[in-house]
Structures are given as C-alpha cells and as structure tokens.
C-alpha cells in the first residue's frame, strides 16, 4: 500500500490528524495540517472526531490492568536468567528478632540492653559529628529529590547508616524487589545532586546507584 491510495488531499490530511493530536507531526506536514485546520470549517469537526478516537483508544488501553506482582516475578525471572543475586543482609532489627527467641530470658535482656546502648551511642556519635541531618516534611517527601540504591551484601547496618548520615541522606522506602532502596537526596540543585550521588557511588557500602528525581534548576 502506498500514499497513492489517498484519492484526495482531504483523505491524506485525515490520516495525519492523529499524529497532529499526539504532537509528533513536524515540518511540511505539520504546516499543511495547521493551514487546513485554519481554513476549512470541516477540518475542526474532523479534529473533534479524532479527539473522540483518541479518548476511545486511551480508555480501551487503560482498562487493561497488569498483574500487581509483575515486578517481583520479573525479578525472579531475571535471577534465573542472569544468576542469583545474594540476598540483602538482614537489618539490625531482623537480626535481633532472629537472635532473641533462641536465648534464655536473662541473656535476651542483656542483648536487648546492649543493642539499645549501641543505638544510643550511634545516635550520639552522629549528632556529635556535626553533620546536619536531612529531613523533609511528609507532604514534601513526594517531591523531594531521590535516588535508587542497592547496598553490598556484606555491608553492616552501622556502616550503611554512617555512609548515609555522612552525606545527609535518608532511606525513604525499601527494600523494593531486588534489594533497591529509595534514598532521599538533600540537594537543591542538579549540580549538588550529582555531587552527592557521585560521592555515594564511591562509598564502600554501595553496590549501585540509579539516578531518580533530580531537583529542578530554576
């Protein structure tokens, strides 16, 4: 089939209207459609019809819902394809939960006390280090700059916490399937964001960093 199939100019322009609507028309074809819309009253009616088609096609597609667990199952398929990734190291809380039930009661209290002491000590150390903590109000979190980060399996919680605190970073959510963490980045410009992310990439505890939302430079 070729463009000779069009018996007249109107038919050819009708075929271009969907591409005018989706914003991909350019050059001579764009100018021709614009001239047609400006000069022929029927053209605006055709454009309205094309808008109806646009809505219909969009509604039909959006009615299709992919399965909710698609990413998790894809991650499993990727592991089979590319080789198994080591599971992320358990968090301090998970380690304590595993440890405590197997201990005598007195030993469990000692372990819990020890963990609390470590936590308090860590907090004091972070505060005394003079690093300004990054925090954002709940409403601002959705708009805050972020990056996706995976940590090395052998990295301890203390080392991860220290690496993040050193840069004023905060884990917002995670782990997502595959051990991804969404980390808030306290940057107000793209340059600052890139600098922080580059520093994070060099941190010994980090396996990979994928750039997420950057601040918009005004």
């Amino acid at each position, binding site marked *: 089939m070729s463009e000779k199939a069009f018996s007249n100019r109107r038919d050819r322009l009708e075929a271009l209207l*969907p*591409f005018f609507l989706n914003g991909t028309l350019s050059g001579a074809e764009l100018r021709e459609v614009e001239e047609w819309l400006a000069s022929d009253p029927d053209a605006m009616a055709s454009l309205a019809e094309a808008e109806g*088609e646009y809505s219909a096609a969009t509604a039909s*597609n959006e009615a*299709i819902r*992919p399965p909710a667990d698609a990413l998790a199952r894809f991650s499993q398929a990727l592991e089979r394809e590319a080789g198994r*990734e080591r599971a992320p190291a358990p968090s301090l809380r998970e380690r304590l939960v595993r440890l405590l039930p197997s201990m005598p009661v007195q030993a469990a209290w000692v372990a819990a006390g020890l963990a609390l002491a470590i936590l308090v000590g860590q907090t004091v150390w972070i505060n005394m280090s003079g690093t300004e903590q990054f925090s954002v109000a709940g409403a601002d979190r959705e708009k805050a700059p972020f990056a996706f980060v995976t940590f090395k399996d052998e990295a301890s919680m203390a080392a991860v916490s220290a690496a993040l605190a050193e840069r004023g970073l905060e884990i917002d959510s995670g782990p997502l399937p595959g051990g991804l963490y969404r980390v808030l980045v306290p940057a107000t410009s793209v340059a600052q964001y890139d600098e922080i992310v580059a520093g994070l990439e060099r941190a010994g505890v980090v396996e990979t960093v994928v750039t997420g939302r950057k601040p*918009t430079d005004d």
Partner: protein
Amino acid sequence: MSGGAGETSDAELVARVGRGDRAALRLLFMRHHTRVYRFVMRQTGSETMADDIANEVFLEVWRQAPRFEGRSQVSTWLLGIARFKALSALRKRSEDALEDGQAEALADTADTPEVMAMKDDKAAALRRFVDALSDEHREVVDLAYYHGKSVTEIGEILAVPVATVKTRMFYARKKLGEALKASGYDRGWP
C-alpha cells in the same frame, strides 16, 4: 517515556543494563512494563500470553542492551521487541491449535459492534469500534493515540514503510467513521 525532568534517561538506563546493572533494568521495567503489557494484551487478547511476553521483552533487553545503539527511542525498541514476540507466540498458538484439531472458529453469538453501539452512547460505541478493528488497523490506532508514536516510529515497530502506516491509519479512521454512521451517529467524514 524517557524519565521526567532531572531523571535518568531511558537510554542511560539501557547503557547501565548493558554493563550488568540489574537495578537499572528493574527501573526500566517499572517505567515501561504497563505499556508493554497493554500493547501485547491488545495483540494477543490473552492475559497469560501478555504476562509471559512482557517479561520476555525485558529479559531480551538484558541480553541485547550491550548492542543497543540508541537509534530509536527505548520505548519504540521495547514495543518492536514486544510485537515480534507476540506475533511469534500467536503463530505458535495457531499451529498448536491446528495440530490439536481445534481450528474451527467459535461461533460468535454476541451482538455485532453495530448492534451493540445502538445501546451505547457515542463514546462507548467508538471504544467498541476501536476494539473491533482488525489487528493491523487497531495497532496503528493504539500506537498513535495511546503510545504517542510518530509515523516513523510506528513504521519501525511494525517494520513497514511510513506510507503504509499512513494508509493503515486512513483506513482505520474510515472504518470507524463508517461504523459510527451505520449506528446513527453523525460524522462529517468519510
């Protein structure tokens, strides 16, 4: 989709996938899976096939990423892979059906799209007519209207010349107009 302002572009993510970065592939999956799934679902009409093929598309990205040259948009590349895999799966399904002696078409006892349209408002009727277009017409309509692809990009995805894309779009829109007219809805063209 190539990521909003300030976000890593799709092409950058593919480059990272090419270096073995699984997190980058997962991010690419999060960005594009829904559209790929919907595209395959429209092609095959099967949720199971759409699910399997959409996964396969991204595994193919894992395999092919080192060779991606960035001549087309990543989303166009993904849809091209998806279409090829969907057509292969459909061909295999049809061969299997023939082997199993199940080639007889099921009798369609439902109303025709025109009769159903009498019961709908115009927007619902138009949606029904879009769904009832032939595969070759519906895919250009979906690719232009829902996926926002240009004539050239659709040509790449379908592996046909741009002139063919335009004529398919022309006949698809003509059929929609005729179906609306037959159902009593006024339309100036065709």
